[in-house]
């Protein structure tokens, strides 16, 4: 087993990995940027190393510094978390060269799956159904226009090197093609340093179903059932669950078998996720394979009782999978809400600032994976994910009730979060009935929640806030009479979008 693992990430996922290391008796080493001096992962690790200034290319994406640090401090493995170097085959190759174990797949499978077009080719050759479209990148606007016409509008333009919803655009007609083509290329180049893009048929109102898989060095492949991640905004997931309320036992057998096929086809090692789109008839299409631990892995942990990070570490050390397929059963239901620093009611605009007050929910069936705390800074340099709230219960309905309860306990002061928005979704009758798809948060939904402002709970909350503010004003005018208090520095005002 490893002696010391360098955790090449930040935020909640760095904290998540550090916790498993601690339980396994492996020393953990964190890296932090200027902006993360007060973040949780910096405090929790056995050792913490300053890696550079706030911009990611100076710190968490500084390959040379991180590899040199790993060698200097005697780390024998690197856990990449998700994002940053998790799916960077070049970084993995450097680790392999320097005899540092990369806790994840080989550079070869990452490179293969990192090219969405290569992945589509491989899947099609291994009888895994793919979304209709191209398996080559689009060279020019004219070339793209022609293909889009053949596939039929609407189509999606996607970055070949993409993921996480970045570098992806829907095109409804040929009129929109040129500007979308340029914008997608621009975004792809910035986000992935590669501006290859391809075309996929736009599947109408699908659900996003994905399967967690694992492979070890001894040729064993297993799946850990499906997750549903249909609740998305800006093509990014915000609520995930396991199992899916839409997938029946027969569909489950088919889709998990396809996922294991996909893993075997590329000799996959370690944890991975095979993502599918599923239409209303429960027909499914391969979307992409994520060669890393997913943000939403906790819902799988909750229903299987496994620790995915420990399993990752053990497999990377050369051990066999600690379980067989037949050992696994789905136990109950789990939901995850991603707590983002963003203004859901203003086009999901990210917010940034200092966390002035923080306290998170607890109690039966509640798990919080948070990367921040009182005094932590949410900066514009990284993703605005603050925390993940996971609730487990024996049924989906009771897990939803628990999620609502837990969301109400959450206090994050100082910046705008999506907590009240998440509450509205989770309590929505269609969400409760499992009647939704990836377009659930469309314009109609956003309009309908603006009318919700008149609902009873909001009115009650407004009422209490009104009383509170009146008392505050009264108190402060009394204080002003007593002394010449200068006004406290206002930290919130600057975050206002006027």
């Amino acid at each position: 087993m490893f002696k010391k693992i360098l955790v090449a990430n930040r935020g909640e996922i760095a904290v998540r990995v550090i916790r498993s290391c601690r339980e396994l008796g492996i020393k953990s080493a964190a890296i932090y940027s200027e902006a993360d001096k007060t973040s949780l992962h910096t405090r929790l690790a056995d050792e913490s190393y300053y890696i550079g200034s706030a911009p990611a290319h100076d710190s968490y994406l500084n390959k040379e510094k991180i590899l040199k640090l790993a060698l200097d401090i005697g780390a024998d493995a690197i856990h990449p978390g998700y994002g940053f170097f998790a799916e960077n085959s070049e970084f993995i190759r450097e680790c392999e060269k320097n005899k540092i174990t990369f806790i994840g797949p080989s550079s070869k499978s990452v490179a293969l799956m990192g090219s969405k077009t290569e992945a589509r080719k491989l899947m099609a050759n291994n009888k895994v159904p793919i979304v209709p479209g191209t398996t080559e990148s689009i060279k020019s606007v004219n070339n793209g226009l022609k293909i889009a016409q053949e596939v039929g509008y609407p189509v999606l333009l996607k970055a070949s090197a993409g993921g996480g919803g970045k570098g992806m655009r829907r095109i409804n007609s040929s009129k929109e093609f040129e500007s979308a083509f340029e914008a997608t290329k621009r975004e792809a180049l910035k986000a992935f340093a590669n501006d290859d893009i391809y075309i996929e048929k736009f599947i109408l109102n699908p659900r996003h179903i994905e399967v967690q898989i694992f492979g070890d060095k001894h040729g064993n492949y297993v799946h850990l059932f499906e997750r549903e991640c249909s609740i998305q905004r800006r093509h990014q997931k915000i609520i995930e669950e396991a199992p899916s309320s839409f997938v029946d036992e027969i569909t489950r057998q088919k889709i998990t078998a396809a996922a294991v096929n996909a893993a075997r086809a590329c000799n996959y090692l370690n944890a991975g996720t095979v993502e599918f789109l599923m239409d209303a008839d429960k027909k499914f299409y391969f979307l992409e394979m994520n060669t890393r631990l997913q943000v939403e892995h906790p819902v799988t942990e909750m229903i299987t009782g496994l620790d995915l990070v420990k399993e990752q570490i053990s497999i990377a050390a050369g051990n066999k999978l600690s379980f067989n397929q037949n050992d696994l059963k789905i136990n109950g239901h789990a939901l995850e809400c991603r707590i983002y620093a963003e203004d859901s009611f203003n086009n999901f605009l990210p917010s940034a600032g200092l966390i002035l007050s923080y306290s998170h929910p607890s109690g039966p069936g509640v798990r919080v994976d948070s990367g921040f705390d009182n005094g932590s800074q949410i900066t514009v340099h990284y993703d605005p994910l603050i925390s993940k709230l996971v609730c487990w219960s024996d049924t989906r309905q009771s897990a939803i009730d628990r999620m609502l309860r837990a969301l109400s306990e959450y206090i994050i002061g100082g910046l705008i979060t999506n907590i009240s928005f998440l509450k509205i979704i989770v309590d929505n009758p269609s969400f409760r009935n499992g009647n939704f798809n990836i377009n659930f948060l469309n314009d109609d939904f956003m309009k309908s929640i603006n009318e919700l402002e008149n609902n009873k709970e909001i009115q009650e909350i407004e009422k209490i806030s009104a009383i509170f503010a009146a008392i505050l004003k009264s108190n402060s005018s009394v204080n002003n009479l007593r002394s010449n208090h200068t006004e406290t520095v206002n930290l919130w005002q600057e975050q206002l979008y006027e």
Partner: protein
Amino acid sequence: MNDFVVSINSSKWNVKLLSNNELLFNEKKYNYELIPVCNNSYFLKLNSEVFELTSEKINSDEFKVLLKGNYFDVTVRTALQEKAFKLLENSAVTKHHHMDIKAPMPGLILKIRKKVGEKVEQGESVIILEAMKMENDLKASASGIIENILVSEGSAVEKGVILFSIG
């Protein structure tokens, strides 16, 4: 002096603080106690219920209040201030409407979709600002004419800088 009008979104409420930790809220009587916890956190006890609130003062009349995940801009005026405000508001109705749109976060101006003098509808995209690795659409918060554009494509902006104004 202890008679307040509180505005949240489009609602207005009357709060009258009495002696002995009692208050009238829309003519209904409550017992209250406000307990400061630390910097910006408070417990508010209303009759038998305790609430945990976070607040930040913006100026003597405006606060940001967080309760149960809901985040409000709250304006509190004394009854007298409210009267004066209403008078001003009525006389301002005929006045020219002008609005500055500021950068909500530091970033890079990727694209400017409108020109000075062009008409915009509320919600129409005016500027694309790149920040947090995303392209963010900055939309007109009101309909009108673009009076001024103070940035150019490719320039980096700090938070709070005025980008354009609508009149």
